[in-house]
C-alpha cells in the first residue's frame, strides 16, 4: 500500500476513534439518549470498507458503525456532522433524530441504515443486490454483521439466496470475539465464522481485521470480484472491541492486553507509517485534526435544535396522515 493511501486510512481511523471517544464522553454526561455501542478497536475494518465502497454502492451498518456512517457521510456528502447530530436526536441528524444510533441512514451516501433487530438486514441486503442485478448496475450491496449476529437464521437464508442467484453481496463479518458476553467459540459451532459460510460455495476469506493493509487489500479483492459480476463474497474480519459494557468484565487480562496494546489497529499503522518515513509530529497532527473535526461535530450536534414535534407523526405512511390522539 502506498503512503498516501495509508495516511488517508490512518486519518480515517482517527476520525472513527475520535468520533467514538467523543460520543462516549457525551453519553456519560447524559447528552446522548438511548443506548451506546462503539466501534473502538475496530477502526481498521470500517476505514477499509469506507474507503472502497462508492456512494452508489449500499452498506447496512451495524450498531458499532458510527464510524463508517460518518466517513461515508463526510466523503460523499460533506456533512459528517449530521451523523453525530442524529445520535443526539436532533433535527439536523440524517434521519431528523428519528433513528438515532441504531438507525442512521442516508441513501445518498450509500448508507442504508442499521436495523436494531440484529441480522434482519442480512435479508434486506438481498433485495438491494437483486435490484442492482436486475438493472445491470455494477453496485455492491454490503451487510456488516457481527459474529454474534451469525446466530440468526437469516444468515443461512441470506447466504443461500445470494449464492443461488449470484447476487452482488459483500458479507463483512466483524468477528470481535463476543456477542455481548458470549464468546464466539461458545455461541457457534466454530470460532471461525468462515467455517459456517463455506458451504454456500462462494469465496470466503478470513482477514486480520486490525491490520489496515490486509483489510483494505482483501476487501478490495472482494469488491472487485462482486463488481465484476462474479457473485457474493464473504469476508471475516477478526478484531476486538474495546467497549467493556457487559462483556468487558468477562475477558481475560492477556486478551485485553494483546488487542489494546500489541494489536491496536492505529498503533500498528503508526509503526508502518514510521517505517515509510512519516514523523511522529506529522501523525500527531493527523490525530489532532481528527479530534478537532469531531469536537466541531459535537458542538454542531449539541447546538442543533430538537426536531419539530410534528416530525413525530410524519412519514408513518406515504399515503395517509397520522394525526394526534
Amino acid at each position, binding site marked *: 500500500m502506498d503512503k498516501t493511501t495509508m495516511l488517508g486510512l490512518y486519518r480515517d481511523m482517527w476520525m472513527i476513534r475520535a468520533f467514538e471517544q467523543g460520543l462516549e464522553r457525551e453519553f456519560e454526561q447524559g447528552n446522548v439518549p438511548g443506548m451506546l455501542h462503539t466501534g473502538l478497536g475496530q477502526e481498521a475494518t470500517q476505514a477499509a470498507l469506507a474507503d472502497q465502497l462508492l456512494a452508489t454502492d*449500499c452498506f447496512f451498518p451495524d450498531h458499532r458503525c458510527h464510524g463508517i456512517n460518518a466517513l461515508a457521510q463526510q466523503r460523499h456528502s460533506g456533512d459528517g456532522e449530521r451523523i453525530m447530530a442524529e445520535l443526539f436526536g436532533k433535527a439536523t441528524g*440524517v*434521519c*431528523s433524530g*428519528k*433513528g438515532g444510533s441504531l*438507525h442512521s*441512514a*442516508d*441513501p445518498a451516501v450509500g448508507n*442504508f*441504515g442499521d*436495523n436494531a*433487530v440484529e441480522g*434482519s*438486514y*442480512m*435479508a*434486506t*441486503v*438481498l*433485495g*438491494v*443486490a*437483486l*435490484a*442492482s442485478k*436486475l438493472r445491470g448496475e455494477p453496485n455492491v*450491496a454490503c451487510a456488516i454483521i457481527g459474529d454474534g449476529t451469525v446466530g440468526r*437464521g*437469516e444468515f443461512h*437464508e*441470506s447466504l*443461500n*439466496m445470494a449464492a*443461488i442467484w449470484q447476487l452482488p453481496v459483500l458479507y463483512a463479518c466483524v468477528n470481535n470475539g463476543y456477542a455481548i458476553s458470549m464468546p464466539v467459540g461458545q455461541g457457534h459451532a466454530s470460532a471461525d465464522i468462515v467455517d459456517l459460510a463455506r458451504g454456500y460455495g462462494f469465496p470466503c476469506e478470513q482477514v486480520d481485521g486490525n491490520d489496515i493493509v490486509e483489510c483494505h487489500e482483501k476487501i478490495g479483492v472482494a469488491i472487485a470480484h462482486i463488481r465484476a459480476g462474479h457473485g457474493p463474497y464473504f469476508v471475516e474480519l477478526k478484531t476486538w472491541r474495546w467497549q467493556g459494557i457487559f462483556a468487558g468484565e468477562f475477558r481475560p487480562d492477556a486478551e485485553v492486553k494483546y488487542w489494546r496494546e500489541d494489536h491496536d489497529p492505529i498503533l500498528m499503522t503508526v509503526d508502518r507509517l514510521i517505517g515509510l518515513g512519516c514523523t511522529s509530529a506529522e501523525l500527531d497532527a493527523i490525530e489532532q485534526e481528527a479530534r478537532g473535526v469531531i469536537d466541531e461535530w459535537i458542538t454542531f450536534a449539541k447546538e442543533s435544535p430538537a426536531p419539530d414535534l410534528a*416530525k413525530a407523526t*410524519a*412519514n*408513518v*405512511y*406515504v*399515503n*395517509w396522515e*397520522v394525526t394526534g390522539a
Partner: protein
Amino acid sequence: MTETEKKVRKTSFTKALNDALDLGMDRFPEMFLIGEDIGEMGGDFGVTKKLWAKYGGERVRDTPLSEAAIIGTCVGAAMVGMRPVAEIMFADFLGECYDQIVNNAAKVHYMFDGQFTAPLVIRTACGGGFGGGPHHSQSVEGWFMNVPGIVIVAPSNPTDAKGLLLASIESEDPVLFLEHKALYRVRAEVPDGYYTTPLGQAAVAREGSDVTVVATMRMVPMALAAAEQAAADGISVEVVDLRTIRPYDAETMLGSVSRTGRAVVANEAPRIGGLGAELSARIHEECFSDLLGPVVRVDGLDAPIPFSVPLEHVILPDETDISAAIRTAMEKS
C-alpha cells in the same frame, strides 16, 4: 375505478388477480414477482399462472422455503425503487417473516424519516373452511392490526380483487394483501384492462336502513346472503365491505351506523383482540348517542382451527351466525 368504463366479463377471483399481476408487470418495469413455486408452476393457487412464461424467471422469481429472505428481499428492493410483489403461500407462514414485515417493511419509511419507501405487496392465501387444519387456515389480520406503517387489504370479490391489487402495486406503502381461499373460485363480472380501486375506502355492498353489517372477505358474501334473508323478515340490512382493513375507512362505516343505529361486525378470526374489536370499539366510541343497542360481533371461537371438518364448522362463523347477530342487534335495541 380511475379509468373510463371497460368491457366486463365473467372472471374468477384467481383470474382477476392473475390479470392484475399481468397488467402490473406490463406497466411497471420495476415490478417483479417473488415466492415459492410461482414460476413455471404458477403458484399453489394458480394466481401467477403463465406469468413466468411471459415475463421470464428474472421477474417471476421462484425461491426456496425462506420466507424471511423473501420479504427481506422485497424490502431491500423496494427501498431502491423496485415494486416487488411477494407470494407467501399460506398466511399462516407469515410468522416466519413477521419481523421483516413489522420491524422492517412497516418502519423503514418512518425511522429513516422518509428517505426510503417500501412499495411492496405481500400476497397471501388466508382463511379456513376446507379442512386445512391449524397451520393452513388462519385469518391473520389480527396479527398485524396493531402495526402502524402497514396497509392491509382484503377483497371480497373478483372485481375489487383486481382493482385493489393494482392499487396495492401502485401504493408507495407496504401492503399485506389477503386472499381468502374460499373466494378463489368465486366468479363475477370483472372489467377488462387496467383499473384501480382506491385503498382505504370501504364499499357499501348493499344499502339498508335498519342495521349495518361491516364485513370483510368471505364474510361479505355471507353477510349479503344474511341480508337477503333478513329482508324476507322485513329487516333492511346495509352491508359495508371494509376492503382495506388498515387504515380502514371509518367515515363510511360510521356514517352508515349513524343512519341505521345498529351494527354487526363480522370477521373470521377469533374474537378476542381481532379486527372486530377495533371496529366495535370505534363504532361505540363515535356513534354512542346514535346507537340503539350494542354492536354485535360475529367471529370465530377463541381456538385454533381443527382439521376435522365438522369441528372446523364449530369454530368458524357463517351466514347463520350473521343472521343471528342481525336478530340480536334488532332485539337488543
